[in-house]
């Protein structure tokens, strides 16, 4: 097991003071901080190997191509996939959009259904709404009072062609049984997309074990640079998919009126890709592998359990999502004493504490919870129990400022 206090030393940002106080960063579900290793990998690429990939036979071009493809292999291994099944995209959102345009738009017909859930992030709702104009219907699996999916209510039928579900809710923290969902969906003849934006950074994820058809996640939520994310697709699924953008790199040969596309995954990477950030993502994966994803998950769970206990004892707090901390990833959303989350967040910030406030990109879920917005804390490898103690202490100050 790693020591979060030691981990913290790899993250220069923790030297910063916020309003004169040491930074307590509890907004990791929005984006994590970056360790030196990741930024060093970017610097090494740009200063020592910089060139475009998959073209040119000079030394730098060859090194850049090798590093980019090695990054793909590193990411593939991290989720137990084959490198040919890893498409580099900007983020999880782009991954879902790529599936919606490249697969669903062609494979689904009017009357077909897509099953989502009430707890999805906007990124797993809005791209599917685009398909409604084709006569494709969206349905939403309900959640129970504990913030868990109501599994028996699924009502899978032959019309459901796609089930797209988050593995870990960015608001409730709920971890969904996606392996079981995939099994049931496949029995029904549906394909399964897993939104791994909040799960891949926090727990071991094995696409072969889950048996999902697609998985998407974002690098910046797992120590990597902004602007790099991953679409995993089973090879046979990627081969069925149409490209969404045309251009260089995604072709084998181009005539004036027709083109032979490149093999997967390159078919989906038109234009010069984000080479440096893919290499940065691989550095982040290496960093996490050193800690061990099992340990990352254990650390997450310990903090959630501790925070749930501590927060429950604060007067005036309403916590959303599963009461059982074992059913959660490192995310806790709450409201405090009728104070608007915006005000709460602003006052905590004056104590150096960074939390998220707002609808957390899940407005349909907010409606379900009958609130406009929530305050959210989310953990990562450098957070400690002391961070949670400081947060709980700061609630007293919040009461004072708001004259409660």
């Amino acid at each position, binding site marked *: 097991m790693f020591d979060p206090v030691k981990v913290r030393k790899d993250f220069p940002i923790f030297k910063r003071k916020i309003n004169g106080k040491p930074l307590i960063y509890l907004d990791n579900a929005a984006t994590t901080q970056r360790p030196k290793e990741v930024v060093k990998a970017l610097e090494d690429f740009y200063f020592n190997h910089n060139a475009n990939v998959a073209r040119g036979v000079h030394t730098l071009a060859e090194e850049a191509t090798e590093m980019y493809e090695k990054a793909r292999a590193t990411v593939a291994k991290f989720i137990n996939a084959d490198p040919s099944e890893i498409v580099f995209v900007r983020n999880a959102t782009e991954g879902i959009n790529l599936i919606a345009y490249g697969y669903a738009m062609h494979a689904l017909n009017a009357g077909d259904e897509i099953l989502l859930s009430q707890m999805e992030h906007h990124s797993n709702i809005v791209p599917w709404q685009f398909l409604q104009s084709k006569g494709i219907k969206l349905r939403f699996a309900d959640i129970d009072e504990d913030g868990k999916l109501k599994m028996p209510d699924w009502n899978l039928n032959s019309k459901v062609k796609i089930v797209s579900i988050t593995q870990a809710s960015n608001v409730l923290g709920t971890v969904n049984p996606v392996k079981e969902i995939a099994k049931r969906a496949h029995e029904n003849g549906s394909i399964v997309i897993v939104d791994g934006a909040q799960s891949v950074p926090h727990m071991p994820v094995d696409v072969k074990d889950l048996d999902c058809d697609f998985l998407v996640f974002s690098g910046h939520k797992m120590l990597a640079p902004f602007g790099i994310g991953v679409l995993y697709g089973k090879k046979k699924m990627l081969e069925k998919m149409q490209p969404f953008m045309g251009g260089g790199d995604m072709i084998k040969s181009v005539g004036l009126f027709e083109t032979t596309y490149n093999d997967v995954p390159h078919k989906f990477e038109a234009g010069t890709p984000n080479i440096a950030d893919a290499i940065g993502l691989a550095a982040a994966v290496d960093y996490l592998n050193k800690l061990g994803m099992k340990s990352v998950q254990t650390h997450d769970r310990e903090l959630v359990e501790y925070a749930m206990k501590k927060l429950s004892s604060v007067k005036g707090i309403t916590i959303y999502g599963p009461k059982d901390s074992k059913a959660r990833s490192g995310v806790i959303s709450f409201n405090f004493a009728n104070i608007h*989350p*915006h*005000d709460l967040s*602003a006052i905590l910030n004056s104590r150096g504490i960074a939390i998220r406030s707002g*609808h957390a990109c899940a*407005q349909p879920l*907010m409606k379900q919870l009958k609130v*406009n917005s929530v305050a959210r804390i989310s953990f990562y490898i450098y957070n400690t129990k002391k961070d949670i103690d400081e947060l709980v202490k700061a609630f007293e100050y919040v009461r004072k400022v*708001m004259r409660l």
Partner: protein
Amino acid sequence: MEALYQEEILENFKHPKNYGSMKNPDARAKEDNPFCGDEIEIFLKFDNGKVSDVKFQGSGCAISQASASFLTEHIKNKTMAQLKAMEEDEMLKLVKVNLSIVRMKCGLLAFWALRKALENK
């Protein structure tokens, strides 16, 4: 922090002036803050070309609610020309405290709702 959440802001947040809805308004509009999901709806009644009554409703943080309270007080008896000439700066002056670039959206939400209402009229 106490500088932002000063007495006048908190007072107008807890007991906002002109809070409520209106039957048959001459102009109305709702504005959302996509950043936080807050919303403010504003209702206006005109008499002789001047604002004779104004109400707002919605939910939001102390800054957005207090701003709406300040704004609705400020625009009573103003002419349409005066309302249309109103700039963001004038709204921010009403709030008195300095707002960060993010919180400025909270401070301007009611003002944007007013602008929209005038366009709708």
